[in-house]
């Protein structure tokens, strides 16, 4: 089943969720490592380009996921969740959806506003144009700060989110994590 069911996630949601999760986790580590001041300059240049290509991939998938999320139905919450828990998880999911879009967009903006004017050559295949932003040191610094703050904010939220999922699985022994791992979970 590709689409979400009344109490189960479909394969599209599951695949998008985990692909994006892996990409984002990698991009957070990559983003941190590549901005260390003592890094070799050739390695830094190459890592920046990989970061941009994978970042655009994450942006594309997050956009598809957002459309899929808006267009499709959402399975009912797992039984046993209190109303505040449902609200909290819903709020976190909305925030995660927004940040997975906002973080790469601010990255795109900082690359576009940069006075370095380095093209984004997506996996050395196709040039992704810069956003139509005026290039200046001030604008670049602003977008860089926004990108870093939102990215690390996203990292914190992901830890919370993953922690909650693990808590449900290992402490509360409910279906929350399992139904995001496989398509059919009937007896949840």
């Amino acid at each position: 089943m590709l689409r979400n069911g009344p109490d189960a996630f479909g394969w599209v949601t599951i695949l998008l969720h985990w692909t994006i999760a892996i990409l984002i986790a990698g991009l957070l580590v990559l983003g941190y490592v590549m901005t260390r001041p003592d890094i070799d300059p050739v390695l830094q240049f190459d890592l920046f380009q990989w970061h941009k290509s994978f970042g655009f991939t994450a942006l594309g998938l997050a956009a598809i996921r957002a459309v899929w999320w808006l267009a499709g139905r959402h399975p009912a919450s797992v039984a046993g969740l209190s109303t505040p828990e449902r609200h909290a998880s819903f709020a976190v999911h909305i925030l995660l959806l927004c940040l997975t879009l906002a973080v790469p967009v601010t990255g795109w903006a900082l690359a576009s506003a940069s006075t370095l004017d380095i093209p984004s050559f997506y996996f050395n295949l196709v040039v992704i144009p810069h956003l139509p932003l005026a290039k200046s040191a001030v604008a670049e610094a602003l977008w860089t700060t926004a990108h870093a703050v939102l990215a690390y904010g996203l990292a914190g939220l992901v830890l919370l989110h993953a922690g909650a999922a693990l808590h449900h699985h290992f402490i509360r022994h409910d279906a929350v994590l399992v139904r995001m791992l496989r398509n059919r979970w009937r007896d949840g």
Partner: protein
Amino acid sequence: MSVRLTTLTAALTALAGFALQVSASEAKAPTLDDAAGRYDIDGSSQINFKVGQVGGGGISGKFTKFSGTFQLDRGDISKSVVEFALFPETVQTGEPRIENFLRSTAVFDTASYPKIVFRSTKITRTGENTAEIEGNLTAKGTTRTEHFEATLTEWNRRVIGFRIQGGVYRTRYNMSVGIPIYSNVVQFDMMVNGEKH
């Protein structure tokens, strides 16, 4: 300074070692002996380069500190020698972060290799006022043979000027960073002026 074609032709003829039919008045017209000799490359020269980037545009810059000589042979242009050295530390692109990147180990590594040196090994006349210069370029500890096209642009008793153009593959000098976003070819377009020694 404007240069007339006759002057160019005369200069090249002189450089090539052909007999020059000038009037006896030594004070006015340049003679063969005037053209031959040693010229010091002076600060009015422009050492410009460009590296293209995917999608158009690229990095344009110049080097502001350099030195060198032309030794023009009296009888035979092919025996002339061009020597040139530049200090990559003085690279200018208009963006300090790019300049620092170019100075770093990623590109010139100016701390370990402060000088880039060219010495011609063969000069071949290719036209009335053009020549091909072949020589050894040493950068970042690597020496390779390179070719440049020279066009005589100015010549009088004291001063000689050439426009020198040529492309250099930077992969040869262990400066491959950024390919293919930035072209492998560094395009040089230099106005090199010498003052008679």
